[in-house]
Each structure stands twice: as C-alpha cells, then as structure tokens.
C-alpha cells in the first residue's frame, strides 16, 4: 500500500472530524506517516465540516489533495460537494440514512450504508460515524481492524458509560458492510 487518502464530510456534530482522527491515530500506531487536515472557520460552527486524512509509508508532502481516492459522505451537501472530486475509479461511501440519492458517477466503487439505522440498532444513533468508518475500512483495509478498534477504545476511555463498547460495535457492523462490498 503506497498511499491512502480520504475526505470525510458531513454536518458539524456528526463526528466526521473524530473518525478522521481515529483513522489517523490507528495508522500512526501501525508506524505509518499520517496527516489530518480539517476544514476550519465559520463553516465548522454548525455547517458542513470535512477533514482529509492521508496515510503513507513515505513522508507526506501536501496535506491537502484536490482529488481524493475516497470520500465518506454523511449528508446531502457533502455528496454534492465531494462526489465530483473523488479520483477516477475511486471509492464513495454514502450514508443512505440522510442521503436519498444514488451516486451520479458510474466509474466509482460505491458503498451504501444505512449508518444511522445501524448505529441505532447498536444502541446509539450518535455512533453512525463509526459505522461509516467501519465501512470505509472494510473496503480499503487502510489499517488493521484491531488497531482501529484500539484507537476507538482509547478515544472513549474514561468517558461516561459504555460509549466505547457502543462505538466499537457500530464500527464492526460497518466493517461487515465494507468487507461484503469489497467482494
């Protein structure tokens, strides 16, 4: 694996920044070079937010990429904005719970995930981001699933209740969807 890059986008509050960080952290734990670059400014205060994660064996040059290999989109504005910027034959992971359209391009590998419903069935609608992360990881194998689970657990360590468990379960459900789509 030479390099992996992905943009993750959705409403502020959907946890896109968080899953980007978790992915970056897991890749770092596997000894990779990583960058995590957020959109920032007024748009992060409640509007659409996104981050770009790059994982590479070599030192990373630009932390921003014009066309990403993959996009994980969690709301309508995000698919409209980022579907066109996915590289040819790239990957698009769509949250069908909040996006009622199909991918417009036919060269992409597209994974449809009902992330909110799946997360709710695991005990927390807020973990929809983890479902999306799982689906992305299932298709790309960007890190080992175990490393990523550790990163999730570390993120929620010390937090109230069983948030870590819920998030790991949501991640696993997403992973299944991703692995199945990998084919």
């Amino acid at each position, binding site marked *: 694996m030479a390099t992996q890059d992905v943009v993750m986008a959705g409403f502020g509050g959907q946890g896109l920044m968080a899953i980007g960080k978790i992915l970056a952290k897991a890749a770092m734990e596997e000894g990779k070079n990583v960058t995590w670059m957020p959109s920032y400014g007024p748009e992060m205060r409640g509007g659409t937010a996104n981050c770009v994660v790059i994982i590479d064996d070599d030192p990373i040059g630009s932390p921003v990429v014009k066309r990403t290999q993959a996009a994980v989109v969690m709301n309508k504005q995000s698919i409209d904005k980022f579907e066109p910027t996915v590289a040819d034959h790239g990957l698009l992971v769509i949250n069908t719970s909040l996006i009622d359209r199909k991918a417009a391009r036919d060269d992409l590998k597209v994974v449809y995930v009902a992330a909110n419903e799946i997360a709710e069935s695991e005990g927390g609608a807020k973990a929809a981001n983890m479902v999306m992360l799982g689906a992305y990881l299932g298709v790309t194998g960007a890190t080992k699933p175990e490393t990523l689970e550790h990163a999730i657990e570390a993120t929620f360590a010390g*937090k*109230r*209740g069983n948030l870590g468990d819920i998030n790991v379960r949501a991640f696993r459900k997403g992973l299944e969807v991703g692995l199945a789509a990998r084919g």
Partner: protein
Amino acid sequence: MAEQVAFKRTSVLTDDYFHYCPGCTHGVAHRLVAEVIEEMGIQDRTIGVSPVGCSVLAYNYLDVDFVEAAHGRAPAVATGIRRTLPEDRYVFTYQGDGDLASIGMAEIIHAANRGEKITVIFINNAIYGMTGGQMAPTTLPGMRTTTSPNGRDTGLCGHPIRMCELLDTLVEPKFIARGSLSSPKLILKAKKLLRQAFDLQHSGFTFVELLSTCPTGWGLTPDNSLAWLERNMVPFFPMEVFREPGKMPPQATPYHPDLKVRDDAPKAEKKTEEG
C-alpha cells in the same frame, strides 16, 4: 553647637540633575516616590516602569531597576513583571496624562480591572508637555493649547476625563486617590497617599493621581502655575480618596464556580473529567 540635619536628600535619588523645566512638579513627585521607597526599605525589591512623555527618563533619577515601556503601555509591561517576579517585589509605573489617559487607556483600565498588584502614579498636568503643549485628554474646557488654539471646544473634543472616578467604577482596585503638588501642605499629603498606595500594593491595584504643573506648556510663571492649578484644576479634579480599605467597591458580580456557558469547553485537567 552641633549641626542639625534639617533636610536630607533621599538616597534613592541618583546624583543626576533633573532635566525638567523650572517650576515643573515632576521633580517633587520623583522625590516623594524616592522617599517612600527609602522609608519602606524596598530599594532592592522595587522595579519601576517609565512611560513616554516628560518623565521618559525617570530611570535616570530613581535609583532602582527600571524597564522602559512604549507610549501608554506601562501597565502592560508592569503586568508582565508583576506576574514574573516573587511576591515581595514592588512594581510601579509613573505615567503622564497623555500616556495614561489617551493612548494607554485600554492598558490602565484592564490592569486595574484585573487587580494587578502594582502602584500607578499618574501625573496630571492637563497637557502634553514633552511634545510641546498639545491638548491632553485632561485639558480643561476652554483651555488653550497648541492644538486647541481657541481653547478646548467640548463640542468638538469632549470633556476632560477624570481617571480616578473612572477607575472607581471597577471592583478590583484597592486604593484610588487624587492629590496635588501645588503647595507644601498638599505635597506632604501627596506623600502620604503614595505611601498608602505602596503599603497596599501587595493586596491589589493601587492608583495615585497627582495634579501637577506645566509652566512651560501653560505659558505661566512657576508661581502663577501653582495658583492656576488650584483655581482651575482642583474644582474639576477633586482631591479625594476614592477607594481605600473600608471604602466599599461597587457591587461585584456574584461568582458562580459552577457557572458553565458551554458544555464542550475543554476540561482543565484530565482527572477532573467525569466518569
């Protein structure tokens, strides 16, 4: 008959000659500060901050460690020093009316509001002396200066600012007083104010305004300057102790340790996090 010491020069003044104009009260104010420092025995623990204005060279005369500040910024510089050095140090600024009440208004208000443990000595002579007699924020209505040749027009540039009264609206200051250097009796009184301020410095922000003369800027003889000060400045700038122990500050906003405006504010320490 044995000689008697009628007047002794304080050791906290250096041997340099004052560069001030004849009749200017800066020299008197310097001597009072020096005497207070000597009497308190704190020369080795005092750091002065000099301003921009006539007293820019204050460090030439007061024999203590000094840091020079940019125009108006002495309270900010003093804040940096105060927050760095051990508590037993004394930190004071010495500022004129242009420096403190015009360009340095933000710094003085905020240093007072934070309750910085410093003493601010404010020399109010109602004019910009060093630059040649321009209008100051404390210039009296109708008073002629080189930039208000027909007298201060309050319709154009407002009324003079009363700094003691302004600072007296704040909760934190521990001592705010105005005195005058216009007569021997008032000079002795002014020294008491300075001493009180230095004595209280370690409890919080202390401020002494001293009404002063500028014969050169005012275009008056030294004698007439003193009379002019008492006749015109004192009625507008009353000599009072506005704040001192026992004199209550304005009602403080109640402090709620649990008052949270937002839930997602970063926690101060990991261990204080819930769960």
